[in-house]
Each structure stands twice: as structure tokens, then as C-alpha cells.
């Protein structure tokens, strides 16, 4: 019988072989031809921990840190291990109720799972940290983990320095290949944003092995493939932090801005946008609240950088430029006189004036005579040699462009506006082909369609001081360890205006100095220093309602060897000479002499600082401060009695 079935032994063996071949084929499929399993295994097992580098520090011109890092602590919890925590005590310490505790815990478990650490309370205050640190033994599963946070030791320069924020999905989509990940911080505004690439540094990555529940088992291959975090590079700015602080103090209770430039280098010495805020407000755990408050509930818009992101008509400060262009084109000379009876009537429409008399260029600048510059502007446009206003306006604009107007200057700050130098095309649309110089006569005194940012205006002052050349205004002078991204190269290129004789600038200097000596800027005199300045008072309206004039003042000093060019503007402050000019004079003195001399001048700081020039339309919208309400109530109560 066994012999009869002998061949079946072969069949049995064939069955064995068949099964093993099938298995082998599937193994080849899985192990040799599929790559997805390897990836799936890596996804399972590797936990990449990002080691955050410290962001770079920003120093001022005297190597004082104005933006640096401090350690802050997050309260971190592993929900699965938090059983036995004294919930009541913890809630009392954090000042939350148990319902909030439970809700947060639920959310964390939902988002991140129960066995992985999640941030329970970010950015603890020092007080909370101290209290928690003593009591940590009562809260198993909770730990304090440190993290680096930005800090502003001088509490100033908010608009310039900017702040950081956590990346959102939109940002990640836009910056796909730059190595950002959810949870990273990036510079949103100011220098933090412009120099993000340099400041962010390079993150380190540690690879850990993770088990099936997401718990860390230890480093992968003993950390052989880990990379270390490289701290962001430090930046040296041209800002003088003392000047900046003084500027911010002087601009208290006002809306406006200050830009001071070192004309020799183009480095910005101070850049104040008022109202400002303490930049440290936007680092702690109350960040969101403060941000929302300022963004939506303050009509003065403190987050707006008024030095580069708003444009204004430059007003009379623009007259200097009109004079220079007229002289350079040879349509006026230093002998030309204009007699003004208190208003310019040449265009049929009355254009008011502050001063009456007969003027040449110099006193015209000093006294800010509207008629003189209206005549000069008309002569430029109606130049007989050219006899075509489209061309003459184009020529005029070319001069303006070469002074850095009508285009983005390229300051190293985000969201810079370009201002407006209107072209003939624009006027052809409005006034038709045969538009007249009289149509746009307002431009001659810096009103009308001409708009500039305050930084552009400060830059114009620097150009006049330098007699025809400038460096692009900038905040950062150098990068520690070299400018790898070539971000500063453009600030080292000397820019020149259209060819203008030095004597013309001399004339203008003379006129501007006159402003301070006997003209409109007499308030801004700095004892012992030859300051050249020009006031500006700009008419403006808001939603059809005519408002108080904007006050402008542009200046540079000392005349012989200009070291500071400055532009100050106060929104709706009225006549330029009473607010903007004295602010500029104090800043010039502070910068050139390092301190304010004499009790009289010092008292002026307080006086200017307390001067409340907040535009009435904003004042109306502002929330009354709680204690003023109380005071009013008390007053009412007293009145009743």
C-alpha cells in the first residue's frame, strides 16, 4: 500500500515548495520592491525634536543691546501622568477655575494625545514661576520647561524693532522650503522681519526613537546624526538708544513721528512713531490681549509705523526742493525777488501766506514765503526754452526722484510706502491736455498731490546737508560675522542727485539757517550750534472735515559739518514752529552734545512731553481711562454737594 502511494510523497513535497515559493514571492514584494514600508517605519519610530536657536541680538550704535533674549518658562504637562495632581492648588496658583483646568486638559489630550508633553500654560510670569517652582512636587506630570523669549531692555523702539509671532499655516505655505515648522516663531514686523534670515539662526535637530505609544526611548544611534542649533547672528544698528528714548518721551501725548539720519552714512539715529508702546507687552503671555487692544481698540493705531508706512503732504519743507530745482534749471537766480502782500494771487485763486514783503530765495526760505515758490514753480513748468509742461514737469520729477521721493527708499523695514510725485499723465487725465501750471500750483508749497513719508523727508534734509549725495537710510550697519546674505550691500552705495551746483545748496543752507535765526523756526534754535531748518504747516482734512494743520519740521546740524539730519511731524498739532521745531532742536542738541544743557532746556523736555496734541477726532474715539472716569464721578459728586 505504501508503495502504491509512493508518488504522493512527491506531491506533498510539491505542496510544501509551493507554499514556500508563495511566501518568498510576497517577501520579495514587501522587502525588495516596496519602499513605502521603510518610510512607514521611519514615520512610526522617529521623533524629530527641534532645538531652537537663540535669535540674534540687536545692538545700538554704542553696542548696547536693545533687543535680546531672556528665558521664560512654560508649564508643560503629560496628561497621562498627571493623576494625583493637586488640581485645586494648581488652579489657585494659576488663577483659573477647575472647569478651565478640565477643559484645557481635554483639549490638550484631543490635540496631542495623553502621553506626549503639551504646553498647559505658556510664558509664565516670574511671580507665577517662582510660586510654581516651590510647589512642583505637588503636581506630578507637570514640569517647567524653559524657552527663549525676546526682550527689549530699554522698553523702546517698538515700531523699529518689531516683534515675533508663531507661524501660521499661510506663512508655512508661502515659505515652504525655508525650514519653518508649526510652532516656530518668526519676525512679523520691523527689523525682526527684515532681518529674519539672519536673526533666526539655524535650528538643531535631535532624532529620538519613539515607541508605539509615542514615548521617547532614547536618541537614535546615540545622536550621531543630530545637528546642533546655531544661534542667529547679532546685528549692529545705527540707532542711538538714548536719542530714541528721548524722542519717544518728547512724542508722548502726540501722534506723529521722528526720523533722524546721520547724513554721512545714511544710518538712522532714531526713528519714533508715536504713539508707541512698550515692546515688552508683546512678549509675555498677555501678548494676544495687548495686540488685540492695540490693533482694534486704539484709534491712534499704535502698531502703525508712521515713519515709513504713512505718507503726508510735506508742506513747506518741500519748498527747499522747489528752490533748489529752480536754481539748478536756471529759471530763478539769487537775485530774483518776489513781492508778496500776504497772499499769492497769480493764479486767480488766493493762496494765503504767513509773511509779507519782498523776498529773494534766502529770506523766502527763512520766512517760508508761499508767493516766492509759487512763482519759482511756475517758472520751472513754463520754462520758455522747453515750452512743454509735460516735459518740464517730467524734468522736475526727475529731480524729485533723485532726492529719493516718489519711490520706495528701500529702508530696511517692511511695509514702506512710496509716497507720490504726480506725473503729467495724471494731470492730463484730470485737467485735459492743456493743463496749466496754475492747476497744480499747490505742489509748489508741498501741498496738493505730492506726498512723502517722513523718512523720505529726513533723507531730503540729509541730501541738502551733504550738498547732493546720500546713502540709503538704513537701521542696520553691520552683521556680526559678516553679511552672508548681502543684505547690507545696497546701503554702502553712494547715491547722487541730479547734477546740482554746490553754490545752490549754499544758498539754501543760508536760507535754512535764517529760518532758525530770524524766520519761522526761531523756537528751534540750539544755543551755540548752527542749525539749518525748515518748518512746514500742512492743511488737511479727514472725511471732509477740515482739521488742525499737521506740524512739520526738517533740519540738519551743524551747518558746517552736518552730523544729523532730522524730520519731525506732529499730526494735527497746528503751527509747525511750536511743536515739531522745538522737539527737533532738543534731539539735535542731545545728539551733538550728548546731553541737554541748562535747566531751562531740561524743563522744555517735560513741557513738550506733557503737551497733549492728540488729534481731537482720535481723542473722541479713545476709551476713557478708568481713573479719569472715577475722577469725573468724584467731581460730579462734589458739584452736587
Amino acid at each position, binding site marked *: 500500500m505504501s508503495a502504491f502511494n509512493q508518488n504522493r510523497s512527491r506531491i506533498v513535497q510539491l505542496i510544501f515548495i509551493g507554499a514556500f515559493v508563495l511566501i518568498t514571492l510576497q*517577501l520579495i514584494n514587501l522587502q525588495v520592491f516596496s519602499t513605502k514600508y521603510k518610510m512607514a517605519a521611519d514615520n512610526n519610530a522617529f521623533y524629530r525634536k527641534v532645538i531652537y536657536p537663540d535669535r540674534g541680538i540687536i545692538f545700538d550704535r554704542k553696542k548696547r543691546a536693545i533687543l535680546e533674549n531672556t528665558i521664560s518658562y512654560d508649564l508643560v504637562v503629560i496628561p497621562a501622568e498627571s493623576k494625583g495632581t493637586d488640581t485645586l492648588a494648581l488652579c489657585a496658583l494659576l488663577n483659573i477655575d477647575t472647569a478651565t483646568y478640565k477643559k484645557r486638559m481635554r483639549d490638550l489630550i484631543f490635540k496631542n494625545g495623553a502621553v506626549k508633553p503639551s504646553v498647559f500654560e505658556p510664558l509664565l510670569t516670574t511671580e507665577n514661576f517662582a510660586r510654581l517652582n516651590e510647589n512642583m512636587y505637588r503636581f506630578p506630570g507637570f514640569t517647567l520647561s524653559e524657552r527663549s523669549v525676546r526682550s527689549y531692555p530699554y522698553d523702546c523702539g517698538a515700531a523699529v524693532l518689531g516683534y515675533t509671532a508663531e507661524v501660521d499655516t499661510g506663512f508655512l505655505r508661502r515659505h515652504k522650503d525655508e525650514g519653518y515648522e508649526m510652532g516656530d516663531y518668526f519676525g512679523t514686523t520691523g527689523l525682526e522681519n527684515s532681518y529674519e534670515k539672519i536673526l533666526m539662526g539655524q535650528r538643531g535637530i535631535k532624532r529620538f526613537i519613539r*515607541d508605539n505609544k509615542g514615548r521617547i526611548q532614547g536618541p537614535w544611534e546615540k545622536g550621531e546624526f543630530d545637528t546642533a542649533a546655531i544661534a542667529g547672528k547679532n546685528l549692529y544698528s545705527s540707532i542711538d538708544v538714548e536719542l530714541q528714548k528721548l524722542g519717544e518721551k518728547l512724542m508722548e501725548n502726540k501722534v506723529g513721528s521722528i526720523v533722524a539720519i546721520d547724513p554721512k552714512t545714511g544710518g538712522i539715529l532714531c526713528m519714533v512713531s508715536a504713539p508707541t508702546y512698550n515692546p515688552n507687552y508683546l512678549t509675555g503671555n498677555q501678548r494676544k490681549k495687548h495686540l488685540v487692544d492695540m490693533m482694534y481698540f486704539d484709534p491712534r493705531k499704535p502698531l502703525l509705523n508712521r515713519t515709513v508706512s504713512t505718507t503726508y503732504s510735506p508742506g513747506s519743507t518741500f519748498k527747499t526742493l522747489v528752490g533748489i530745482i529752480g536754481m539748478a534749471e536756471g529759471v530763478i537766480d539769487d537775485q530774483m525777488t518776489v513781492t508778496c502782500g500776504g497772499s499769492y494771487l497769480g493764479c486767480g485763486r488766493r493762496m494765503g501766506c504767513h509773511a509779507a514783503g519782498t523776498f529773494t530765495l534766502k529770506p523766502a526760505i527763512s520766512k517760508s514765503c508761499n508767493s516766492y515758490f509759487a512763482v519759482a514753480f511756475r517758472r520751472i513748468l513754463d520754462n520758455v526754452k522747453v515750452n512743454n509742461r509735460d516735459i518740464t514737469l517730467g524734468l522736475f520729477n526727475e529731480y524729485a526722484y533723485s532726492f529719493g521721493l516718489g519711490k520706495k527708499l528701500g529702508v530696511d523695514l517692511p511695509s514702506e510706502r512710496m509716497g507720490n510725485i504726480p506725473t503729467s499723465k495724471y494731470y492730463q487725465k484730470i485737467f485735459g491736455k492743456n493743463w496749466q501750471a496754475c492747476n497744480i500750483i499747490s505742489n509748489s508749497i508741498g501741498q496738493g498731490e505730492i506726498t512723502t513719508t517722513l523718512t523720505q523727508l529726513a533723507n531730503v534734509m540729509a541730501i541738502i546737508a551733504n550738498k547732493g549725495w546720500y546713502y540709503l537710510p538704513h537701521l542696520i550697519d553691520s552683521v556680526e560675522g559678516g553679511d552672508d546674505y548681502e543684505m547690507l550691500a545696497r546701503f554702502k552705495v553712494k547715491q547722487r542727485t541730479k547734477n546740482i551746483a554746490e553754490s545752490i545748496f549754499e544758498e539754501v543752507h543760508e536760507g535754512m539757517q535764517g529760518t532758525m535765526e530770524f524766520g519761522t523756526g526761531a523756537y528751534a534754535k540750539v544755543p551755540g550750534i548752527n542749525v539749518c531748518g525748515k518748518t512746514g504747516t500742512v492743511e488737511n482734512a479727514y472725511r471732509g472735515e477740515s482739521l488742525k494743520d499737521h506740524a512739520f519740521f526738517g533740519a540738519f546740524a551743524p551747518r558746517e559739518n552736518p552730523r544729523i539730519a532730522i524730520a519731525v511731524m506732529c499730526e494735527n498739532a497746528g503751527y509747525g514752529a511750536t511743536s515739531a521745531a522745538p522737539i527737533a532742536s532738543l534731539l539735535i542738541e542731545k545728539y551733538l552734545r550728548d546731553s541737554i544743557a541748562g535747566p531751562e532746556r531740561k524743563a522744555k523736555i517735560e513741557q513738550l512731553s506733557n503737551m497733549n496734541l492728540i488729534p481731537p477726532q482720535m481723542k473722541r474715539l479713545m476709551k476713557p481711562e478708568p481713573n479719569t472716569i472715577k475722577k469725573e464721578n468724584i467731581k460730579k459728586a462734589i458739584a452736587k454737594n
Partner: protein
Amino acid sequence: MNRRNNNLAAEGIDYTVIWLYGILVSIGVLCIFMVEYKAGSNWLSTFLGGKTNYSKQLIFGGVCALVATFILLTDSKIFTAFANLSYLLGILLMLATFVLGKNINGSKSWIPLVGGFNLQPAELCKIFTSLAIAKFISRQEVDFSNLKSQLIAGVIALTPAALSILQHELGLALVYLSLLIAMFREGLPAQFLIIGSCFGILALATLIVERDALTITLTILAGLIIFLAYRQVRKKQRLITITAILSIWILCVGVQRYVVPYIFNNVLECYQSTRIYSMVGKDYDCSLNQKSNEKVTGKAARKPDDYNVRQSKIAIGSGGFFGRGFLKGTQTRGKYVPEQDTDFIFTSLGEAFGFVGCAVFLGLYLYFLFRIVRIAERQRSAFSRVYAYCVASILFFHIAVNVSMTIGLFPIVGITLPLISYGGSSLLTFTVLIFIMLRLDADRQMVLR
């Protein structure tokens, strides 16, 4: 006298099998070590400490060596003598589990012993059943070519299988089916296997193909065969042929439309149906399952999860051609594969040593099986031969099903990888199974039994 006996005992023993056995058990301990190893622990002390599974497996190995030696020293006659008695004992033990049983991993098939050890009678019963079948077929008066004796053999094999099913041990129950291979060698008509596999293919087709589409396909197929056969067959036989084809068609459609869904919904547990469906990449709707509905009334049916197979395939697949290296498998170190030291032990091997390691390992096993078949064929006694075939069949079934389920070729049933998987019961069973065969083989020169 004593010495002569010893010589007799050592004589004729197939050392190749012992070597293979030793190598495989060592690989098993190594695999368990890979699964359980934690970086930084002192492997020597944990090996000797007896706390870890690999250390325990080492102890089991020692016990098994003792048992093996003991078996080799016995007289092979006692196996024939006690074959039926042991079978009876095995069945009794299995019945006893229903009373004394302890619930481990959802199957109530373990009897607690002293010292925290547990005994799984269904596991041991493999030996007894093999012996009983060998005994039955080798009897002089049994002619295995007649249906009656085939049915009796079938009952012997399927009784413990049925009991296993009652204990929720589907895997072990299936093992008893593998004895059909041994019976096939002894003259079981091939039709059984062919019809069996046809049913298997039909069941698989039911899973993959849409129900109505399959019915239509079967109908067209039947019509085609009738059309072709009509001319070929003589007139007289036409009616019979057509009736036969039609009845086969009715059977197939009945199986496909009613029997298979009935088995999935009423016989199998929800999780078993889910596993089988997930193997072909489909979701099984547990709300159809009668058993699960009885148990979890009002509770929404859980979404089926093929986590085990997925992680197991990832582990093996990530090994690649050469493997990730000893103790470097991330799936193993992270404990991603559940039950990795028992049913899924193959994954640790596949991950660490890759395709090359797997191929070598499978080659070793195939060699082992062929060796046993060779041993079987050289027996003079029918008892020894049938028994050896039973051993080969059981081993083959275990290996094929275990490895197939880890690589997603077979639904997950609780079947261990012989000699490799962690567990004393399993190791002891296979040791006894193999060494009884070796003892019988050593005595192959003796008289016919």
C-alpha cells in the same frame, strides 16, 4: 546491559534533525531577545536572571532538552501502545478546560498549573492525535482506501478541532486540518483536497467579487460548459451530464450567495470576519454579525482595524534586502507590532535581517520539512511513517500559516511559529512531537508494527 541499552538508544538517531532543532530553537531565543532587548541593560545578567522572556525561553529550552533526552531513552513501543490512551487523555483534558479553563487573551483554553505556568491541552493534543491517527491507519485490518476508515480517521482528527473551536482557538482547530496532508499520503482521494481548495477559491472569490457579478459569472460559466459538453457527450448521457453540471452550479451559487455570508455573519466572530476581510483589503461591516449584535447591543460597531497586519508588514517591509541589522529594527524597538514575541516573532527576524535573513531562515525550515519527509519514507512501519507525515504536516501548516499571516497573505489566526515563538507549551509540544519521531526513526530497523 545498561551500557548496551544506551548504545542502542544512541544508534540510528538522525543527528541532522537534532542539529536543525537546536539551530531553530537558538534562533528563536535570539529573536525573543531582539524583541525584548532594551538599550543599556546587561544582556548577560538578564539572560541568566529568569525574569525576561528570552531567559524563560532558555529555561524552557533546557526543560525540553531533558524531555527530549528522556524520549530518546524510552522504548519506541510505548508510543504505539499508549497511542489511543493518550488520545483519550488529550480529549479529556480538552473537555476539562471547559470547567477548569483560565482565560488568556480571550481564549479559554488554558489549565492553570502550579508555579504560574499554564497548560494548553489543545496544543498537546496535536501529539496525541498524530499518534492516534498513525495507530489507526497502521492497523492491519484497516484498509485506508475505503470510505469508512477515511471517515473514522477524519473523526479522530476533527474531534479536537471541534473542541478547539468551542474554546475560541480557531488557529489550533485549523492545524488539525493539516493532518489531511498526512492522510492524503496514505491514500485519501485527491478529490477531497481538490474540492476543499475549490471551496476555498470560491469563498475567496465571494470576498473579492461583487455578489451578483459572481452569480452571473458562474451562470455564464455553467452555460458555456453545457454548450461545449452538449456535442461531446453521447445522447444517453446528456441528461446526466447536464443535471450534474446544473447541480454543481446550484451548489456553487448557493455557497457563494448564502453559505459564505452565513459563515461570516453567524459562525465566525466579528473580529475573525474582519481579519479575513482586511486580508483582501476590504472592510467588514460588524453590524451584520449576529454574534457581535448579541453581545454589544446598542453600541455602535467599531470600525475594523488592521493595525496588527499593517505594523507587521511595515516591520518586515522596512527590513529591505539586507535588513536593518541586529537590534536596530525601529519597529521592534518601539514595540509597534503587538504579540511580537509569540505569533509575530517572524517580524523581528524580517526587520533585522531582511530578505536575505528570511530566505535563509525559510530555506532552513524547508530543509527541515524535507528531511522529515525523507525520514517518513524510509520507515518500514506504517505507524512510524504516518506519524512522521503528521509531524511534517503540522510543522508545515504552522510555518506556512504563521509566516503568511505576518506578511498579509493569510488572516490572523493564533498560530505560533514552531520552535521560534516564545512559549513553553508550544516549544514543548513540538519538541515531543519531533523527538518521538526521532525515537521511532532510530528503531526503524525493528520489526514491523
